[in-house]
């Protein structure tokens, strides 16, 4: 088989369907990455339009252009769109597109999950934009503080749109994070040990873990607030034992890590592009990895710096002030490692490098004003003024948008296979950078002069008029610059001349393929011996195309790839990925049905949609696995690897593990919220505690025990005699026990509207019940799969996945019901 035949065979296997249905059924990361990027850019356009409306409104005093009702929707949606529908999906799109290529593999770990996440994002985002067109968009500010955002302050549908739409969108963040973590840990080119990974992969590993631990607190907060709004469960209402500060804690527990979740991918881009532009390798690889990890950890310790004015005791604030300033240290490590890289290299001023320089100038200012607002007394003055608005735009635009523009210009030749011919990019660069600084330096100033954020206009005579006008003009110049970037990208993608492979002289694997990239990325998977495979072996692309690597011989219709050992990068398993299917988009639509049902208060639609999701999920898992024993699979170069259905930790096990980390964080946030209300909320203790009695603890304990034992017994039975039935039965009994115990707890706290404690018991019970039902469903599906022949003494990996869920469910049952019942038992 020559290179061209191999290309044709692999393209037939990996490409999306021809025609427009291809967009709806594709699961290939090349397509999904581009679709994410286009969707994110579209939302950026909408968010940018709103920004221009804001600047038009503020350009003159006593502006009659928008009244407060409209303006409040506009600024709320500007922040919401830029944060949730632009920034996160944009770097997700870049990651989805690049990561498998940089890691030397053919696709992400869970292609269908990636597609499902994408469609959830598009549908959820569309809900929000539609609400804007209908004039019922969220209007409580993008951080949605209750009571303003709750029934008291916003009786209309506006807040529900935010809570439900954003939660729907967050499915995509969580699913992308699971997929990215598992891909980085397992799906790499053989020989790529952790310390040989491209630096971008390290950054994205940190980011993905941060998403899994940072988003759940906000998802929980949204659920609680929606429960309060829809069913009167008073989590944030002070008269019934709630506390509005709980929302601020949950929101900023997400919101501050979020800033670093957005910054770190951009830093990963800088760490990737800057050394190439400086024609050397990155200075201090290990230091930078350490800095990224410590940023990830530290960012969870400073959420309270958004709450310096809420009356928390000063010594408490001091701790968070220290953490907030300390976080500048790993940032400084990176900044100086980058400058050191430039000093010791031979830097060239090409367009991506220009954007990186703009990043330096802007982000450093944003970082310095960040240190200023981390100083508590200064924050007391500038909090909620335009100074903070300017600070956050310096950080997010300087620290995210500018590096992303560098990324666009750096990888555009990769996506299009063309060289940039028209030179609009340089003009656009100067318009954006100068326009941006004019806009937001002015905004700092007017903030110091006392202009509050979120006021729709202002009176003349306070010295604000000229500053605001200058700022607005700067804003329009910036917008023209962004328009020019769009034109530049479209024109150069459509009509520029063909370029060479690896135009920048980079060393990472994404340049070891033809451009634009083929659907399968690598005709054969290379063996990696260093951090920059293309520097180590300039002929690598040719040898890959000739099929000299692994899996160079396509088989049938199989999308074949392989996984590696986490640390050493030794080739481990042979994996067959699923092909094109409409399942993800259909499932996203049905999932959307549940969210629309909640939003429009058509509650009958919710269980119906849930049933649909269950049926589709069963269909989803049914296509996985094998009904016959496969034995070791030949992957070429004389190597045979175990097939994924016949290993104890199949990809699904890893995905489950990281999904459960997010789940556990959500549960932990719930327990935190419970403890917070208990200790801080004014109207505690509640009138009465739940009386646990003897039956509920006994059922919970027995259920948990059986759930832990069941999968182990099932695995033993399967591997010894091919029979998993007894163990599955035990697991089912455990799930039923836990479900009944949870039901008793809910019944014990009869009225969830009476007090935040009762409402919390309902949520704890509901959480346990949800996991018990899920476990029971899984047992049912596994029983059916055993009957259909998917399980055998060799193929027991699915029982390991069940075991993870069962162990987690057991722990949640014991902890959750103990938290609900202990106060009553002790008093």
């Amino acid at each position: 088989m020559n290179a061209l035949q191999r290309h044709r065979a692999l393209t037939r296997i990996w490409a999306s369907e021809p025609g427009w249905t291809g967009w709806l059924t594709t699961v290939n990361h090349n397509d999904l990455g581009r679709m994410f990027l286009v969707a994110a850019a579209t939302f950026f356009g909408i968010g940018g339009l709103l920004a221009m409306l804001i600047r038009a409104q503020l350009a003159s005093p006593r502006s009659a252009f928008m009244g407060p009702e409209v303006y409040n929707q506009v600024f709320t949606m500007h922040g919401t769109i830029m944060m949730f529908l632009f920034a996160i999906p944009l770097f997700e799109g870049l990651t989805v597109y690049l990561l498998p290529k940089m890691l030397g593999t053919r696709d992400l770990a869970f292609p269908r999950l990636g597609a499902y996440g994408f469609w959830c994002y598009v549908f959820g985002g569309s809900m929000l934009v539609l609400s804007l067109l209908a004039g019922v968009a969220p209007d409580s500010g993008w951080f949605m503080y209750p009571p303003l955002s709750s029934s008291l302050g916003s009786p209309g549908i506006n807040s529900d749109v935010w809570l439900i739409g954003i939660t729907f969108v967050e499915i995509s963040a969580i699913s992308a994070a699971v997929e990215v973590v598992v891909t980085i840990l397992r799906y790499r080119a053989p020989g790529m040990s952790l310390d040989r990974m491209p630096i971008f992969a390290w950054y994205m590993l940190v980011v993905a873990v941060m998403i899994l631990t940072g988003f759940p607190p906000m998802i929980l907060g949204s659920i609680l607030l929606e429960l309060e709004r829809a069913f009167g469960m008073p989590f944030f209402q002070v008269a019934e034992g709630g506390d509005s500060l709980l929302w601020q804690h949950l929101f900023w527990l997400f919101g501050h890590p979020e800033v670093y979740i957005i910054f770190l991918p951009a830093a990963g881009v800088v760490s990737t592009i800057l050394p190439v532009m400086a024609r050397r390798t990155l200075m201090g690889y290990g230091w930078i990895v350490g800095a990224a990890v410590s940023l990830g950890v530290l960012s969870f310790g400073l959420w309270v710096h958004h709450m310096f004015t809420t009356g928390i005791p000063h010594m408490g604030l001091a701790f968070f002030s220290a953490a907030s300033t300390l976080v500048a240290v790993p940032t400084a490590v990176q900044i100086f490692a980058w400058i050191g890289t430039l000093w010791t290299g031979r830097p060239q001023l090409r367009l991506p490098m220009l954007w990186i320089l703009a990043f330096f100038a802007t982000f450093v200012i944003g970082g310095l004003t960040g240190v200023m607002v981390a100083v508590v007394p200064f924050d007391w003055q500038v909090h909620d003024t335009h100074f903070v608005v300017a600070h956050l735009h310096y950080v997010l635009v300087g620290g995210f948008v500018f590096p992303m523009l560098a990324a666009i210009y750096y990888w555009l030749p990769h996506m299009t296979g063309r060289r940039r011919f028209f030179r609009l990019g340089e003009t656009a660069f100067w318009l954006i950078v100068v326009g941006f600084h004019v806009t937001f330096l002015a905004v700092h100033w007017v903030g110091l002069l006392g202009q509050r954020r979120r006021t729709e206009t202002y009176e003349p005579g306070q010295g604000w008029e000229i500053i605001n006008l200058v700022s607005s003009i700067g804003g329009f110049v910036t917008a023209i610059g962004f328009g020019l970037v769009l034109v530049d990208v479209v024109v150069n993608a459509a009509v520029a001349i063909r370029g060479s492979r690896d135009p920048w002289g980079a060393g990472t694997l994404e340049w070891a393929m033809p451009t634009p990239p083929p659907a399968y990325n690598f005709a054969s998977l290379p063996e990696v011996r260093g951090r920059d495979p293309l520097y180590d072996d300039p002929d690598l692309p040719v040898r890959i195309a000739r099929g000299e690597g692994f899996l160079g011989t396509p088989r049938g219709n199989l999308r074949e790839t392989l996984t590696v050992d986490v640390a050493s990068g030794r080739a481990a398993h042979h994996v067959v990925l699923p092909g094109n299917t409409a399942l993800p988009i259909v499932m996203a639509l049905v999932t959307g049905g549940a969210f629309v049902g909640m939003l429009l208060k058509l509650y009958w639609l919710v269980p119906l949609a849930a049933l649909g999701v269950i049926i589709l999920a069963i269909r989803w898992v049914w296509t996985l696995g094998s009904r016959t024993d496969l034995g070791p699979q030949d992957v070429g170069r004389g190597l045979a690897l175990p097939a994924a259905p016949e290993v104890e930790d199949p990809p699904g096990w890893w995905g489950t593990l990281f999904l459960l980390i997010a789940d556990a964080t959500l549960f932990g946030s719930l327990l935190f919220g419970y403890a917070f209300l208990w200790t801080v909320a004014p109207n505690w203790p509640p009138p009465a505690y739940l009386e646990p009695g003897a039956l509920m603890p006994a059922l919970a304990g027995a259920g948990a025990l059986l759930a832990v034992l069941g999968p182990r017994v099932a695995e033993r039975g399967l591997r010894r005699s091919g029979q998993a039935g007894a163990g599955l039965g035990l697991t089912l009994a455990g799930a039923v026990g836990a479900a009944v115990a949870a039901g008793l707890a809910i019944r014990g706290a009869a009225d969830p509207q009476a007090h935040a404690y009762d409402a919390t018991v309902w949520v704890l019970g509901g959480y346990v019940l949800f996991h018990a039902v899920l476990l029971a469903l899984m047992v049912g599906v596994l029983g059916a799969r055993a009957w259909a022949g998917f399980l055998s003494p060799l193929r027991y990996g699915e029982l390991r996945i069940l075991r993870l869920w069962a162990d987690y469910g057991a722990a949640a049952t014991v902890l959750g019901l103990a938290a609900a019942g202990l106060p009553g038992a002790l008093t």
Partner: protein
Amino acid sequence: MSVVHPAGPAAATIATLWWVLLAGAVAIFGLVMGLLALAFRPRESTGGDRVWIVGLGLVFPLAVLGSLLAYGLVVGERLLPREAPDLVTVRAEGRQWAWSFSYADAPDRVTEGVLHIPAGRPVDVEITTVDVIHSFWVPRLAGKLDAIPGHVNRLRIEAWAPGEYAGVSSEYSGPGYREHVFTVRAHDAEGWSAFLAGGTP
């Protein structure tokens, strides 16, 4: 409304803090930009990992941030409401979209939209709300503090001289937020006695 035109001790301390922060930030920004610019000059390559990462990346920010943190803490402690012999206590209650003020020294007086205080004496404002979250802020006198349902927060303010000072709510609270403003009227000793005695302000 300006933070950098203080009219009382707390605002003045913070204004000084701001000028220090600004000077430091400009110096550091200049240093980073200078180093960046120098990278593009024609030269022999210089500087090992240690100088850049350990020296500039670790030691330098730790030293600067450590001293800054200490400064911020001391300032913050100084601004806290502490015992004082001539302390005056007032209460500010926010609602959508008005402020009511009451006075410990004149229990039956309630004023709407105007807070009366004596000039030259420390005043503690007990801040709360009856509906959504608001924030009490008189930029020329002190920093802001939130009014949170079910909680009472205490803020120390002081005006050097008699006069009127603009105050605003500075936590977004819905459609009437922009006009959710008030005035602080600082009286001289005579005026304050007259106010407490029930005289028209």
